[in-house]
């Protein structure tokens, strides 16, 4: 403190006296006035609790009771060693489900799934119909039922039957020509949907755009 007068070193506590004061041992009666006043000051600063300092005891104890009861509920309701493992398993299962869904959905849209699964995806959310390879030539008017293709039958599809009749009329000689594609308007769509190409066998042509309008999916 610059404005304080210089005091003799005897007035100020040395290291030993300072440690004694800090430890609460005070000073002797022979100590200088300044040190005695300092000892009294520290004694008062560390005096026993005053009533107003203890006024919040009830609130503190109530908060303690709430905190311990909450902690008790947590410890009783959850087993700490098991919960993290269960959470890890749940997260793993969720991640696997997400991966399978993403990969399966991609494969379904690409049409690369096995036929039964692709058919299910086709019926469920409009994925492309399963591929069955290039059909073998068959006589005109033959049954549209194909082995291994039980889910789609021309007789069950009025639009396909009508399309077949129209395609046969469109041919001048009425002969069956596989792989000749004739644009028709789908009967069930009422003319609102686009054209669909079907071949002479009465099956929809394998065309990426037309495949999404396959009636079997309707």
């Amino acid at each position: 403190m610059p404005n304080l007068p210089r005091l003799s070193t005897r007035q100020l506590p040395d290291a030993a006296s300072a440690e004694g004061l800090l430890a609460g041992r005070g000073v002797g009666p022979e100590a200088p006035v300044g040190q005695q006043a300092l000892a009294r000051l520290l004694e008062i600063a560390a005096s026993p609790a005053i009533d107003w300092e203890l006024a919040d005891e009830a609130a503190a104890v109530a908060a303690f009771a709430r905190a311990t009861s909450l902690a008790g509920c947590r410890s009783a309701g959850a087993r700490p060693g098991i919960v993290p493992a269960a959470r890890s398993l749940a997260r793993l299962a969720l991640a696997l489900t997400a991966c399978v869904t993403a990969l399966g959905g991609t494969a379904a849209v690409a049409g690369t799934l096995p036929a039964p699964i692709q058919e299910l995806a086709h019926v469920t959310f409009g994925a492309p119909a399963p591929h069955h390879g290039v059909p073998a030539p068959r006589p005109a008017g033959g049954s549209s039922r194909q082995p291994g293709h039980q889910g789609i039958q021309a007789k069950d599809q009025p639009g396909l039957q009508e399309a077949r009749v129209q395609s046969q009329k469109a041919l001048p000689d009425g002969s069956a020509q596989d792989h000749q594609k004739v644009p028709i308007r789908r009967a069930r769509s009422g003319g609102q949907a686009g054209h669909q190409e079907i071949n002479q066998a009465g099956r929809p042509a394998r065309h990426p755009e037309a495949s999404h309008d396959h009636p079997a999916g309707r």
Partner: protein
Amino acid sequence: MLRYWDLPPDWPDARSVAGVLEAEFPGVLRAAALGDERAFARLWRDAHPPLLRYLRMLAGDAAEDVASEVWLEVARKLARFRGGEPEFRGWLFTLGRRRVIDLRRYAGRHPVRLTADAGELDRPAVEDTAATALERLSTEAALALIATLPSEQAEVIVLRVVAGLDVGHVARIVGKRPGAVRVAAHRGLRTLAARLSVSAGRAQGVTR
């Protein structure tokens, strides 16, 4: 209710505010950790007054709120605490100090003053503040006089005298070396002694 300004100048100090449990502390701590409210109340009555005095110096009027948060954290973590009474006090004051630091960070552009009372007392002459403390002999005034020291010195002195912690515990709380803590405390005491000597000398001169 007895207030500090009602205390007579020669109010006897039967015991210090710190360290009254001593030998009973382990049992009290164990019971409190198991949820015994009476045991927790004993811990609180023992340690709250010095904590509040320390926090009043650091955080001013926010001291009681900070102390409540500290005790709530203690209640949550008491079952995991290991140590004796000095360690418990060290933990308690460390929590309080961290809370004050958080409070200051939260305040951001408007940092909390070390103590409102100390700031107001710092404006008049130092001799007047020291004389007031001597005349009233009140806890509040004594702490206010200590708080006029540089903050590092004042904090160290309060932790040693009011909280009753040794140099090692204080060093851990304030994050300094024990030697630096010792030097800061001694410097603060010498400054206080100089102020009180001047004040006492003037008072004796007036009375003569």
